[in-house]
């Protein structure tokens, strides 16, 4: 194998990603070519020189991290009202409330802009009012 070709394969060789035949050819060349031998040695050191080994995870630091993430998960996207409704309202009550909200709110709304669920509720044709639909149209 020629010097120029070997140079492009040195990294893959060091990483153990070459097939047996190519690896043998690169190995033979690197043993007899000072430049390629030295570059292979540099490539083997590169990772350890540029990256610090990660410190072992400290369980207390991990717990603090879990708490930070969960604090943000709680605050993320879900409105307090939605969380309240999802967790504490009995499903039947939620449905009744949704129907009430729809009945009070919908007559004044432009019905063509409403999601299908809400239109069905408003038309009285839907099997069950979906409170998600109501939340979507609520301001």
């Amino acid at each position, binding site marked *: 194998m020629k010097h120029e070709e070997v140079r492009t394969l040195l990294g893959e060789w060091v990483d153990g*990603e070459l097939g047996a035949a190519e690896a043998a050819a690169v190995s033979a060349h690197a043993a007899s070519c000072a430049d390629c031998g030295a570059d292979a040695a*540099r490539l083997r*050191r590169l990772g350890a020189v*540029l*990256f610090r080994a990660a410190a072992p995870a400290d369980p207390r630091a991990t717990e603090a991290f*879990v708490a930070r*993430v969960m604090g943000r998960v709680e605050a993320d996207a879900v409105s307090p009202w939605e969380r309240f409704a999802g967790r504490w309202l009995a499903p039947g009550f939620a449905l009744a409330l949704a129907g009430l909200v729809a009945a009070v709110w919908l007559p004044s709304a432009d019905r063509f802009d409403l999601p299908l669920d809400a239109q069905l509720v408003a038309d009285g044709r839907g099997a069950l009012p979906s409170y998600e639909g109501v939340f979507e149209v609520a301001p």
Partner: protein
Amino acid sequence: MGEPRDEDLARRAAGGDDAAFAELVRRHAPRVRALCEATLGGPAEADDAAQETFLKAHRSLGRFDGRSAFATWLHRIAVNHCLDVLRAASRRRSESLDALLEADGAALGLALSEESPAKALEARDTAERLLARLNPEQRLALTLRETEGLSYEEIADAMSCSLDSVKARLRRARAELLEAARHFSDVRDV
């Protein structure tokens, strides 16, 4: 019985079980944080990025279909987030940083040519400036290879790219770094 599998926890978390999600964070935080720190350098940036990774994962739980392991799926989210952060940083970077500081190249050249076992450059600024010369994709491929020891196929999977792209990214990253080191060691050898 034993511990619940990640994939079962993920299903419970998708259904709103916060305790199940907290357990997933607990299990995977060390690896995600280590990846973010190796990729982004500073511990504060790494912490932010790791938090964002888990928030993105939480928002996407409904799309986790269990076809790959949860760890693989989460790792891909972390890799993508790190790429976003690196891309934003490289857009902000000023021209002046593109000029390699002579001292950085010399320090790298010396560290690479010593006979003693390789250890990380003491000056983290130096390592950071050297790594900052790589484009985000090259830098991330190198980080995954050198810090996590991933195979080329695993890197391709994590970065959603071809095996040839992985080879090209690693080759360019290493050529750039060796070039920086060589320039100064050659001068010294003369």
